[in-house]
């Protein structure tokens, strides 16, 4: 490296970045450091991964169960979806959703409001934002509700094990979740107003929206492409899991008088999950790593902001690529550790 006149060091991370980023979860502009640019990229990667994982799981479970349906139309539709989406390269799908979305979405001035407050345009999805007073009190009340629900659940489980008495945990939990935050509004002085996006003219033909929260079309199409693609693999995991539980288990459960819902919840799912979780973990990891394709459609993720713009502006290829690799490695390992913990929790506990 010395031969080629390249210096090595991580000192550049504290330098002023002098470039701007389109969309970030934390405040960022060019006067912030390269390290903060790294955080912006990392948070955006995590954001799109989390959204992707949530939707992929929901779609995957629904489609996986639909494939097992006895209804011919439903299970064929699900099968076509799975075969179609898992056999087309992801990058093509991302391009398709992005440019298809850009072609299909209306210009800001042509859009029609959904429910009067949501505006879906080519420049992004503009949604109302809440402007809070005393947000912290609201969060405390929410946390208090969640903690008390956990305590009640533990207590209820003990009661059932010791005395065989069932407690209506679900209704109590829901009640707590509504009443405590409501109290914070009434007594705690919390209030929230809604900021609705307003159209703004930029030029004779150009418009945009101001106020509220803006979700860029890049985020929407990337999350859509990632979840639709990964959901096909998760659907297959779910199908494999449910089919992996032997028929005799269901029949035996039915024969001791459990309702179909109880059969699913108490007998089939606990066994199916053991088969579903490990391969699904792989899919979550894939989704997170695949989110790096974002750079192709201008979503400012870690690869675009840090391994893209920052690398170019500083020329520190080795340092930045090494940091980026380590970051993806840690992200993947964190997901695996969590999923392994969950897997262990639901595994058969032999006594």
């Amino acid at each position, binding site marked *: 490296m010395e*031969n*080629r*006149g*390249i*210096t090595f060091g991580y000192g550049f991370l504290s330098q002023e970045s*002098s*470039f*701007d*980023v*389109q969309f970030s979860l934390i405040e960022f*502009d*060019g006067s912030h450091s390269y390290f903060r640019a790294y955080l912006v990229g990392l948070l955006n990667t995590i954001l799109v991964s989390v959204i992707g994982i949530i939707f992929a799981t929901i779609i995957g479970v629904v489609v996986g169960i639909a494939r097992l349906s006895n209804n011919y139309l439903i299970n064929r539709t699900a099968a076509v979806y799975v075969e179609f989406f898992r056999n087309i390269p992801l990058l093509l799908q991302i391009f398709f959703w992005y*440019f298809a979305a*850009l*072609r299909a979405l209306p*210009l800001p001035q042509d859009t029609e409001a959904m429910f009067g407050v949501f505006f879906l345009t*080519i*420049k992004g999805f503009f949604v109302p934002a809440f402007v809070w007073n005393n947000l912290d009190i609201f969060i405390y009340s929410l946390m208090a509700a969640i903690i008390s629900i956990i305590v009640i659940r533990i207590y209820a489980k003990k009661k059932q094990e010791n005395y065989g008495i069932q407690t209506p945990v679900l209704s109590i939990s829901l009640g707590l979740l509504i009443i405590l935050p409501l109290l914070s509004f009434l007594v705690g002085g919390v209030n929230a107003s809604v900021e609705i996006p307003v159209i*703004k*003219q*930029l*030029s*004779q*033909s*150009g418009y*945009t929206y*101001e106020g509220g929260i803006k979700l860029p*079309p*890049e985020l929407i199409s990337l999350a859509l492409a990632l979840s639709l693609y990964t959901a096909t693999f998760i659907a297959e995991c779910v199908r494999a899991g449910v089919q992996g539980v032997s028929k005799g288990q269901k029949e035996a459960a039915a024969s001791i008088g459990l309702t179909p819902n109880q059969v699913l919840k108490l007998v089939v799912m606990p066994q199916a999950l053991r088969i579903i979780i490990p391969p699904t973990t792989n899919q979550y990891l894939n989704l997170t790593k695949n989110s790096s394709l974002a*750079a*192709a*459609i*201008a979503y*400012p993720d870690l690869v*675009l902001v840090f391994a*893209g*713009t920052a*690398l*170019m*502006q500083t*020329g520190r*290829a080795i340092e930045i690529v090494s940091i980026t690799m380590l970051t993806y490695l840690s992200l993947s390992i964190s997901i695996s550790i969590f999923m392994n913990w969950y897997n262990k929790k639901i595994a058969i506990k032999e006594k």
Partner: protein
Amino acid sequence: MFKYLKQLTSLVAMVAVLFTFTTETMAAKKSKTLKNTQKKGFVRCGVSQGLPGFSNADAAGNWTGVDVDVCRAVAAAVLGDANKVKFTPLSAKERFTALTSNEIDILSRNTTWTLSRDADIGLTFVGVNFYDGQGFMVRKNSGYSSVNDFKNGISACTNLGTTTELNMRDFFNSKGISYEPVTFEKADEVVAAYDAGRCDTYTTDKSGLAAQRIKLSSPDDHIVLPETISKEPLGPVVRQGDSVWEDIVRWSLNTMIEAEEYGVTSANADSMKTSDNPAVKRLVGAEGELGAALGLDNDWSLRIIKQVGNYGESYKRNIADTGILPDRGPNELWTKGGILYVPPAR
């Protein structure tokens, strides 16, 4: 008699050894890049992924453009054939790494010469083959006639990892306008997104705007605003640390510009050998030993002019006749009101 013969033999052997030794030191003096290029038989040149007028491949894979011509000139000088070039299309992000990691030997890819690039990352800029500046393209029906009409909330599409990103921030900051930067890795995606209406303006070097405008669905509905917000001297780049190679590339470019200045073209280069002007004679190799200083033969510059043409020919062929920028603007010779001025070849 026998004794003399023995002495003669040893003398011949000594001379032979000495001769080998001197030729070897001469070769060692040559640059590593030059040696490798001559061994391989082609010049490894990094270009853009398709920018009409600068470096663009046609359907048959033939590269043309003013940036391409710099590499062709070096090939003509070093290898005797302007076609002995291997082109590697590079994204803005990859370009410097490709050069420093020895994938290519010349980077001729509309690259802006800046202090940090020149000094910090193992590169050396050898000159300027196009004086450019950053501008903005907008839709005609927007009614914008100047950058002063821009309003808060404007969205701007551009390429990732270029000086454009930095200039854009400086510009909008100085005007106090809040803006939304939308940056893509490839120029084609920038054009597609701007065309679809994702952005209100497309900003990059003005030559790039002129070239990319052709790719829009209806080019006539768009205009480039008159203001230029930055200096963008574009030029070829080589690795730091091989000054002979650096000189070869620099003087190949300078030869093209000087040839235009003295009216030497690909058509009349041979006849110029008998010119009365010593500067012209030096340029076509009829006087002086300029090639030797670069480790080349004396016809190196004649080959450049004959095979590639002078700068004016290259500009006309690639940029003016293709309708990209018919007006040469600052890229005119200093003698004709432009700023192209190169040191004399002597």
